[in-house]
């Protein structure tokens, strides 16, 4: 296969055990290592024929399926950069991401694909839109290959891809009102995969549940760690990811051994999936990341399913996982204030920087800085943001400033203390409140918009949009939610709206966010 280091394992497994199952879809269809490798090769040939060159960005706007994985591998094989998009997000947002990264092409399908095609046409975007008919089991991508009519030559890829070249761009919420693209180099994925292999020893008998969508950084583990180990992956698509009873059932019935998701998802399995009454089957490892796991729920989980190892993984999209904490069997849930984020992964250096600039002492809270081989190259086309986030020290080491607050205790274990800015975490997704405000500010009936958050009695983050009106007409909450659903992904839509005559101000003339956040707009 190609010189892309990420695909070396795929090619090796395809040679040594071509009939080993790599992908399993929920309807039971399976795809072997051999079949996927050959699909990826043909996709790469076809993309090259269509003019995709090394370094070109190619969007993947497909629901989770063999087709989507094949597309990702094919793009990497062609030395392109894959840009995974949320097929359920508003087409306008996906289109703006594709335009932002200057994508050469996008692979899409289904009804949302047609909407995206129209959206891109309206923007006059010079981009190939490859619309797959039907997605699932690899059938859609196979048919696209046949329709494209590019002859199968089986040619090998070109030169070895440089480890510094980009593998993918993951778009996350941006503080300037639109999403920003985190450019992840091949080297970063490689380093992360090596750490995961050394820490969790996956093997060909493992079956990994892929719960996170491909546009979410957790999916880097789900795709590339099992691929390296020769394990199989159960692709959990949109029809099941939010269905806790099905998910809990399938952990035992599908022989899942490794699970990786947000704490929100695991809490959903506990609260709505009857997890405590269902066996855990062959599950041996539960990894979670993306947000803080409240201890009462984690205690319930580890009591209900005592067999697996439980690990809290920490790291923003910009660095992937950089610290981790394995919950010991004797973890004192009553005495620990919260779950630690643990110690640095192999090869990672972390520093807690005190407000005055020096290194924080034991127990002192400061900003967490990270020096890691898993770090991004930068933000796509945003040298200003990149320069602010990545800084070189006197030894030419590159540090990423996380914006997260942390402390290190006497044992050297790291603890998380929230954010120093207005970014929030909700259900594992990071959200810049400014992006919600920017979207709502275009609503014809709204004047100004300010958002705040609070944590409800269940420990869930609630987003409240405080708005003023432009005229006398007051939109209903249903109208506002509908408007949001056309402009924002579902996980960014505010839970509550509060209409105000004017915002409370601080003595310095700024909107008094603290005062807004403590009110209860429901009352």
């Amino acid at each position, binding site marked *: 296969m190609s010189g892309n280091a990420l695909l070396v394992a795929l090619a090796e497994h395809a040679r040594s055990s071509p009939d080993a199952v790599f992908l399993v879809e929920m309807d039971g269809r399976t795809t072997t290592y051999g079949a996927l490798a050959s699909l990826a090769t043909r996709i790469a040939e076809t993309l090259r024929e269509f003019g995709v060159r090394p370094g070109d960005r190619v969007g993947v706007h497909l629901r989770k399926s063999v087709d989507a994985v094949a597309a990702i591998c094919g793009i990497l094989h062609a030395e392109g950069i894959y840009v995974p998009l949320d097929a359920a997000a508003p087409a306008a947002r996906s289109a703006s991401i594709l335009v932002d990264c200057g994508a050469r092409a996008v692979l899409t399908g289904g009804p949302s694909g047609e909407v995206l095609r129209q959206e891109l046409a309206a923007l006059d975007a010079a981009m190939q839109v490859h619309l797959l008919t039907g997605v699932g089991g690899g059938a859609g991508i196979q048919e696209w290959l046949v329709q494209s009519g590019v002859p199968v030559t089986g040619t090998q890829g070109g030169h070895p891809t440089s480890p510094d070249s980009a593998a993918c761009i993951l778009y996350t919420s941006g503080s300037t009102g639109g999403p920003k693209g985190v450019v992840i180099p091949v080297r970063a994925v490689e380093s992360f995969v090596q750490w995961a292999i050394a820490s969790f020893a996956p093997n060909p008998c493992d079956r990994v549940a892929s719960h996170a969508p491909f546009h979410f950084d957790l999916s880097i583990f789900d795709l590339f760690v099992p691929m390296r180990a020769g394990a199989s992956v159960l692709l959990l698509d949109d*029809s099941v*990811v*939010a*269905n*806790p*009873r*099905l998910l809990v*059932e399938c952990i035992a019935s599908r022989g899942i051994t490794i699970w990786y998701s947000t704490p*929100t998802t695991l809490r*959903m399995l506990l*609260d*709505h999936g009857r997890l405590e009454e269902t066996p855990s089957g062959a599950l041996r490892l539960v990894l979670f990341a993306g947000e803080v796991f409240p201890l009462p729920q984690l205690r319930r989980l580890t009591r209900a399913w005592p067999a697996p190892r439980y690990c809290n993984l920490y790291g923003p999209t910009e660095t992937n996982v950089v610290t981790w904490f394995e919950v010991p069997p004797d973890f004192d849930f009553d005495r620990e204030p919260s779950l630690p984020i643990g110690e640095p992964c192999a090869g990672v250096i972390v520093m807690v920087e005190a407000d005055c600039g020096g290194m924080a002492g034991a127990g002192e809270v400061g900003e967490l800085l990270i020096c890691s081989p898993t770090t991004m190259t930068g933000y796509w086309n945003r040298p200003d943001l990149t320069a602010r986030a990545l800084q070189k020290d006197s030894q030419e080491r590159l540090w990423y400033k996380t914006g997260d607050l942390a402390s290190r205790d006497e044992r050297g274990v790291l603890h998380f203390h929230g954010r120093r800015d207005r970014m929030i975490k909700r*259900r594992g997704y990071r959200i810049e409140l400014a992006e919600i405000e920017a979207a709502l500010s275009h609503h014809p009936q709204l004047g100004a918009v300010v958002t705040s958050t609070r944590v409800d009695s269940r420990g*869930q983050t609630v987003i409240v949009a405080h708005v003023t009106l432009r005229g006398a007409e007051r939109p*209903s*909450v*249903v*109208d506002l*939610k*509908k408007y*949001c*659903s056309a402009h924002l992904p*579902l*996980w960014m*839509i505010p*839970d*509550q*709206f*509060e209409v105000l005559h004017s915002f409370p101000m601080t003595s310095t003339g700024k909107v008094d966010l603290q005062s807004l956040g403590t009110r209860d*707009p*429901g009352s």
Partner: protein
Amino acid sequence: MSDSAIVEAARQFILDRFLPGEAAGALTPTTPLISTGILDSLSVLELVTFLENRYSIEFAAHEVDRAHLDTLVAIESTVRQKGGRG
């Protein structure tokens, strides 16, 4: 014709829990709930638990989806099919 008791109960639950401050009239029997983000995945699960408890019915795992729950009308029909009485 006035809305059925099932529609009314589901409407009230959704208004109280997820749309505080909203006028009841804004939520019609055919307002899409899931595709508009009025109910997100966790809210849908809360709604299911509410319906199961109130009507002593049971949702199968595959029934917790848009086809069964996207509007008040769909919710009513699903509850009735399961033998729930309004």
